[in-house]
C-alpha cells in the first residue's frame, strides 16, 4: 500500500460526459460530493477492466486531471473512482 493511503473505497461520482455518434463515451469532468468540479484534461487510456482494489468491472478510463492521473470506471450507467482512505 502507498504511504499514507490506508485503503481504497468504491465511490460513485457525478460525471459529465460526451457521447459521440459512434457511441464512444468520453468523460469531461468529475464533480466530487463537496461540489468541487475537476475538469479532465486528457483520457490517457480506455479499456475493459476489473477494479481489483474496490471490486466491480466496466470500462476503465485513465484520466489526467492537472498533474495527477487516476482511474475512472464506467459501470454503465454509473461511474465510480477508487477513493483513497487516508490512514
Amino acid at each position, binding site marked *: 500500500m502507498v504511504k499514507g493511503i490506508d485503503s481504497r473505497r468504491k465511490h460513485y461520482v457525478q460525471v459529465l460526459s460526451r457521447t459521440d455518434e459512434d457511441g464512444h463515451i468520453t468523460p469531461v469532468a468529475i464533480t466530487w460530493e463537496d461540489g468541487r468540479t475537476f475538469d479532465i484534461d486528457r483520457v490517457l487510456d480506455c479499456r*475493459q477492466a*476489473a477494479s*481489483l482494489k474496490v471490486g466491480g*468491472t466496466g470500462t476503465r478510463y485513465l484520466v489526467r486531471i492537472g498533474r495527477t492521473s487516476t482511474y475512472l470506471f464506467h459501470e454503465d450507467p454509473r461511474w465510480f473512482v477508487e477513493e483513497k482512505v487516508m490512514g
Partner: protein
Amino acid sequence: MDRVILHSDMNSFYASVEQAEQPELRGKPVVVAGKEELRHGIVLTKSTEAKKYGIKTAEALWQARAKCPDLIVLPPRYKLYRRYSEMARNIYYQYTDLVEPFGLDECWLDLTGSLPLHGGDALVVAREISERVKAELGCTVSIGLSWNKIFAKFGSDYRKPDAITPITRQNYQSIVWESPVRDLLYVGPATERKLHAYGIRTIGQLAGTSDAYLRRRFGKVGFILRTFARGEDTTPVKAYDPTRRDVWREVKSYGNGLTAPHPITTAADAQALIWLLSESVAQRMRADGMRARTIAIGVCNDVDLSGYGCQVKLDRPSAATRHVAHAAWALLHACEPFDEDHPIRALHVRATDLVEADPGVQLSLFEADEPDWEGLDACIDELRRRYGNTCIVRGTELLDASLVGLDIKDENTVHPVGYFHR
C-alpha cells in the same frame, strides 16, 4: 485437418463474481445460496475456499454451516451474473464468431478458421483469453483445448481453477483414457453405476468396448458415449443466434418448477402455484412463438421428498396461460387430495410437444367460439414488457400470500442447455 476447439469454464462462477464485486470477500469461504426463508436454502455455488471445507453444490445450508461456521452466505444476483457472462462472451467473440454457450458460465469456441488471424498457436490464444478475463472481469477461467467438444470440456474440468489443459492426439490416451468414466460428459451417477456393474471403470475401457457388447447392454446411448470416449464426436460448435433468447436455442419443452415457501395443503394454495408456474411457461412459449400440444406436471411430496409426474394432451396446440393452467390444474386435482396428510413440497409445470405458432391452428366445427385467450395474453405480455413481470397478476395467484411478488420468469429460468437439445 483437426478442428481447434476451446472450452472455457468460469470457475465457481456465482461466487467468483461476488468476490470480484466485493474484494473483501476474496480468500474467504463464500457460497451463493437460495433464500432460506423460502425454503430454497441450498448451495448454488461455492468459492474455492468454501470447497476446502468439503462444502458441495446443492447441499442444504445447515449442512454447509456445520462444516464451516464462518461461512458467508450470499443471495443470488442473476442480473449481475448475466452481465458478467455477457462480458466474457464479448471477449470470446473477439477471437471467433463460433461461440456456443453452455449455461451461463461455460462456452465452446471453434478457433479452426480464425486461428491464423491470431498467430496460429491455440495455446497462446487460450492464455490470452484467460489473462483478459482475469484483467477485465476479475474472475478466473479454466480452459480445455482439443479437436472435439467433448475432450475440450474434459480438459477444462481436468484442472481448475485458472488452468489451461490441452488434450492432443498425443496425450489423450494417457490423460482422458486413464480417468474414471464419470468424468465424461453425460455419464452421471446412474450411467456410472451401470458401467461399473459391467466392469467399465475408465474412459479408455469404454472406448475399447465392442459393438455387440454395447448394443446388448446399453443400446443407442452406449454408442454415443463410446464416440465421446474415443474423441470421435464431430458435433459442430453452434454459433448462438442473438435474436433468440440468451442461453438456449432449439427448445423441446418449457418448464418451470418451484419449491413452495411452505408445505401446500390446500387446493387454493396449489392452484395459486399452478397458475404462477403456468404463467411463466406460457409467457416464455409466446415470446418464442411456440405452442404446446402436451402439458405435464411434476409433484414432490413434502414428507419423504418422493415425486411423480403425469401429462395430458391438449385438444389443440396452445400458448394461452389459461389453457396451460387449466390442463395442469386438472392433472393435479385428479392426483392430489390436498390435506394435512399429503403436503406438497414442490410443483413443476412443463409444456412439451411444441409446434410453431405461425401456421395457425385447425379449429373445430362443433365447438362454441372461445374468447381470444391468446389475444388477452398478448396484451398482458406487452404490459409486462413495459412495466415488468409483476405489474399485472392473476387473482388466483394472490390467494397464497407467500407467493405474491415472486417473479418466476426472471428469477427462476437459468438453465444450462442440454448437449442433445439441438
